[in-house]
Each structure stands twice: as C-alpha cells, then as structure tokens.
C-alpha cells in the first residue's frame, strides 16, 4: 500500500513539475537535432527510382539506404534500417541488454548528453522534491552544488557497469548460454535467454537503483559520494519491495508506450507515414520515455524523503 502511495505521489510530483520534463526534453533536442541537421545535409540524392517497385505512397528505398551506409559521406554512414518505427527504441533497448555498444563516433553525443543530464539533474530532483515551484535560480543553485559529486558518482557507476558487462554478462551469455542451448529447440533457447536476461537485468537494475538513491543522497542530503553510495545500498536493501515495484511499474509503462508506438504503424498510412506523423509520433515517444523516467525518479524522491523523515523522527 505504501509502495502504491509513494508511486502515485511520485506521479503527482512530476505532473506538478512540467518544467522538469521540458528541460530534459530540450536536452535531447539540443544534442540530437544539430546532428540530425548535419545528417540531412550530408545525404546524397535518393536512389534510382526504376529499381524500386512503384508504391503509393513511395516506400523508403532500402537499397539506397545500404548504398549510403557503404559509400555515403560522413554522418550518412550512421543511417541504418534500425531507425524505422518501433524497431528503433526496441533495438536500442536490446543493445543495452545485449551489451553491444553504438558506433564509436556516436559515443561523443552520448557523453555530451551524460554531462548535460548530470548538470541539470540536481535542479530536476530539487524541483521534484519540493513539490512546488522553486524558481530557476534555486534549480540552478541545486544543480551547481551537486554537479561535481554527481559526475564522480556517474564515472564510478560507469566503471561498475563496465565491470558488470565484462564479467557477469560475458559469463552468462557466453559459455553458459551456449552450453544451455546446445541441441535445444529454439523455444527452449528463448526460455533460457529470458531467464539469463532476468538475472542480468535484475543485477543491472539493482545497481541502477543504488546509484539513483545515491544521487538523491547527494542532492537532497548533501552527502559525499562514499556516504551517498552507502545510503543508496542501505535504502535499496531496506525498501527492496518498493524498489522492485517501481521498476515493474516503469517496465509496464514502457511496454504500453512501445505497444502504442508499434500500433501506430498499423493505422492506415502508418507504415510509411507522412513527415508530420513521423515528427509527432517520434517526439511523443521521446516525451513518453522521459515522463516514465521522471515518474520513476519522482517515486524514488518520495520514498527517499519518507525514509529520511522516519529516520529523523526515530
């Protein structure tokens, strides 16, 4: 019951703070749109139409796309069929689970995004924790105060994730998986992979929860990085049921979001959508993902504040 109340309280905190959503959304635009514009300028003229069967409306020319991937100039080489519809977000999520990294040049925008995200995260959390408007100055002050320890924590977290992928992921999905599925039917292999993914995903998400609560300890409790990590571990251990429930709610929300995005492809005209439908649908997906992320953070903030209040009263 407490978990549900905390989660709904987290939702309410996000509903009351649309500015937090807008700031993070603007961040994704600031990093991605210039690269998208560069991509557009670098794309060569479309392919030879005679090679492609006439369709109405014209479908994207996949052979031309491959030609661009192999022979195209500069950023055009990063254009792959992975960008289509719901295949894009699921493919990205699959890459996270599979431990496959994006092309090296794309690590640069990811690092820039990490720094920007970390820089504003203090203000976002302060706003969610306050429950009411705090003003730009207070948000900037909260961000400025926490940015350095958050970057340190992020770097430490990055190393921990790397170790996790190099050890546990490699062991689970390398020799163990191969041994489990040797001679098995494909549906049996699917069950095994699901099991191993649940194990690895569980460890990954637990680490993520520890780091999330550690960030709250830095921003809201002014803790040092070691203290914050300690707080994070303790909170996840004490409130593991709530932590798991938050992740489950978030997972369900993500599944609903992806299902809705996939369903849009089945609406007439959805498989080859017009430009405005591409923009509206795509940005709705991004806003939806950000909203889910913020709801998770809002619930974590609420839980953190409740636990801290309890601790102070006792």
């Amino acid at each position, binding site marked *: 019951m407490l978990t549900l109340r905390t989660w709904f309280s987290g939702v309410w905190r996000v509903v009351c703070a649309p500015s937090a959503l807008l700031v993070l959304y603007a961040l994704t635009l600031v990093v991605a749109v210039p690269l998208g514009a560069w991509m557009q300028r670098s*794309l060569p003229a479309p392919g030879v139409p005679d090679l492609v069967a006439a369709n109405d409306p014209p479908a*994207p020319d996949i052979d031309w796309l*491959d030609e661009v991937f192999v022979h195209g100039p500069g950023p055009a080489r990063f254009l792959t069929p992975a960008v289509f519809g719901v*295949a894009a977000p699921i493919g990205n*999520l699959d890459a996270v689970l599979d431990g496959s990294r994006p092309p090296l040049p794309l690590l640069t925008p990811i690092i820039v995004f990490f720094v920007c995200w970390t820089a504003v995260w203090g203000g976002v959390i302060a706003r969610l924790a306050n429950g009411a408007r705090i003003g730009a100055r207070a948000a900037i002050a909260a961000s400025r105060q926490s940015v350095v320890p958050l970057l340190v924590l992020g770097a430490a977290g990055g190393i921990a994730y790397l170790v996790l992928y190099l050890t546990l992921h490699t062991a689970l999905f390398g020799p163990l998986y191969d041994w489990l599925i040797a001679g098995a039917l494909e549906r049996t292999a699917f069950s095994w*992979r699901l099991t191993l993914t649940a194990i690895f995903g569980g460890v990954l998400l637990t680490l993520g929860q520890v780091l999330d609560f550690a960030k709250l300890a830095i921003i809201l409790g002014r803790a040092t990085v070691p203290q914050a990590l300690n707080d994070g571990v303790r909170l996840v251990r004490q409130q593991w049921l709530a932590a798991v429930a938050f992740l489950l709610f978030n997972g369900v929300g993500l599944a609903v979001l992806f299902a809705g995005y996939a369903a849009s492809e089945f609406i007439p005209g959805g498989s080859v959508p017009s430009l405005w439908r591409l923009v509206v649908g795509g940005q709705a997906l991004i806003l939806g993902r950000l909203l889910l992320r913020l709801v998770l953070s809002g619930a974590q903030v609420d839980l953190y504040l409740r636990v801290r209040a309890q601790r102070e009263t006792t």
Partner: protein
Amino acid sequence: MVLAATVVWIVAAPAAAQGVPALDPSAADQLRAALGGKWVERQFPLTLTSGATCELRVWLQPDHAAHADRIADAAREALDQYSAWFTPYPYDRLTIVDVPWQSPEVAAGTAGVVLIRARWLQPERSLTLEAQVARGIARQWWGTLVTMPDRYLADGLAEYAHSRTLERIFDRRHQRINYSLLETRWFGGLVPWAIRAARLDRQTTGINRPVFRRNPAIDLSDRSAAARPAQMAKSAAAITTLERYLGWPALQRGLSAAARRYAGQSMTAAMFFEILGDAADRELSWFVDQAFGQSSTYDYAIADLTSVADATGTCGAGPCYRTTVVLKRLGEAVFAGTSLPPVGPFESGRALEIEVRFADGQRSEDHWDGRAAEKTLVYHGPAPATAARIDPAGILLLDVNRLNNSRTLAPASPAASLSWSVRWTTWLQDLLLSSAVFF
C-alpha cells in the same frame, strides 16, 4: 513468352530430359536419422498448374509445426514457376527437411530432398522462410538435375530464380510488388520483427546485393565456404543484369534451353553462357568474361555537370546554354554491349544510357560504350541542365557505387532527406535515453 520458349525448344534443345538423376526414396529418412531428435511430418498432395502432381512431405522440428502450410504454399509456387520457366519438375515427390536451427550450414540437398533451416518465430510479412524453400527448390534444377561444377553459377541461378518466386508470393499475399519486408532480429536473434516501412525489392535486396556491394571483387574461383555468399550475390547480380539487359523472355528462353539440354549432365559456365547467347541471339562474351571471369569491378560515374550561359551559342533567338557532362569509368570492367572493337573514333556498343534533363522539361538520351576512362558530352540548348544520370534504368546491377551515377544542379527536394533525418534524429534521441539507464 510461350511462343519464344517453344522456338528455343526446337532450335537449341532438341534432346528430351534424359538421364535425370535417380531419386533415392530413403535419402530424407537417412538424413533425419543422422540428425536425430524429434520430428513432425506433414504431407501435401500438390497439383501444379500444368496438371502434374507431386507428393510433398515436410519434416519439421517440433516447435516449427505451425510453419507447414507456409512451406507448402511456397513449395507449390516455386514448383509451379520453375516448371514453367525451366523444365517440368522431374520427380513425383519432394521432401523438405527442416534441419535444427543451430546447424552451421544448410547443404544443397539431393535429388528430391530440400533442406531448410526454419526459425521458431517467423513474421508473416517477412518471407525469409519462403526464401529458403524457393532457393532450395531452385537447386533441384540448378546443381541437381543439371550438375554444375561451377558452384557460383548454380548458387547464382538459384538465388536469382528464388527472388522471382518470392515476388510472386508477396504479390499474391499482400497485393504489392515486393520481395519481402526487412526482418530485424533481437534478443540474441530469437525474436524477429518485420519492419513494415522497409519493403525490399527483388532486384536489389532479393538477390542479396548488400553482400555483393561489400565484396564486389570476390574471386569466383575461390572454393572456400567463406567466399560462397559473396560469390552467390555477385553471380545473381550478374544474371539479373542480364535479365535487365536482354529482357526476361530472352533470359527465360536461355534458362529453359540450358535445363533441357543438360538435364542429367554436367554443365560448365561456358556451356551455359553459350546456350544462353544462342537463345537470346546475342553474343555475350563481352559481359560474361568480365562479370564471371575476372575479379574486376564496374563503377561508372557522372564526374561533372555544368551548365553555363553561352553568348556565342547557336540556339537561335533567346538565351543559349552550354551544358557539359563528364562521364568516368572508375572500375576496370567495361559494360560495352559488344565484343567488337571500336573503329577509329567510332565507339562500338551502346550498353550504357546517359540521360540529361533540362529546366524546360526536355530530356536527352545518349549512349556510351563505356570503354574510355572518360568521356565528355556537350549540349547547346535554350535551357540549362538540371540533372544527369548514367544508367538511369539501373540495368548494370554490378555497378559497385550507384550514388555517383547521378548529379543534379537544381536543388533537390528535401522531402526524402528530411524524412530520413527525422527518423534518425528520433532514433538518436531514443539512443540517448536508452543510454541514460546508466547515468
């Protein structure tokens, strides 16, 4: 098409299909016993359009039983089409064996036996399953009925033939002329997704052109297993180029004549191209020697396009523009159209078409034999040029880079590039958010 095929039958293939390899009725059972495990058997009595009947047996992995009807449908279509295009299917039965999904390589099968490797989940609009069936059945003609020492040619013919069959299946099922939808796989390759916007074309992805594009100079005489996919793709691209250059009726006549003439015998690549040339009434060594005999590559390009006002021009009243188109041959291979050498300054052959479009809507069509390293075309006209393209119909599918085949002076419509960049930007935003799991 029927009349043409009849003519070839009389002229080039007088022998009936004799010496057809004997069908071993226990071959499929022996194979299943060797592979072990549990199997599901389904039987389908097929009646082909020609009235011939064929008993189809499908041996499936237990978790693939739901695919039986799709496999039978693809098999019926393939048998129907190949019997009409090449020669009637020589046996009264066909067994399709679905080997375990982890088998490293699907072998070519034997007389009356086709091997496929189905997957547990197969999206309806992605025809990868049907492709395996159609490709395997094509090998009943190319490599089994007609034994072929040149592996690349048998592979290329099977690849080419299956792409035509798949186009028909996709058309019949979805009322669209496509090869398939693009299939992507997640979760270690276990979960597929057919991308509805990514419709594949027979003459590009259907013949595995992406593989050829990455290995255009593959040596066709290389017998290693690693070289085989690229050899198959190059061979299929060359055969499809012949289809686009000669036309399907001429190519089909040649395929039919070859299948009838060499049924039960061995056919080398030289024999095949000789009979193909006879059937098409064309001399093809200018193409065959370079496409199949060497590791050289084709690459033609529009190197430059300029259109400037010409005060001294002779266009009559009104403005006059001088348009210059510079064509370049960047690859070693030549797509000439004939083996006859040029005579003095006169070119020999006109295989390559050059199209120049002008601002007033006029269109010029020229031809080039593609031999020289460079050629310049000059036009005087009342309007400036807007675009120039070499091989606008996309006949030469062996051209390794088609991005340099056109050049435009008018600002291109941003619609296509805008929609691509919007898709990519959304994907990048999503990638950033997926990475934020670690922030």
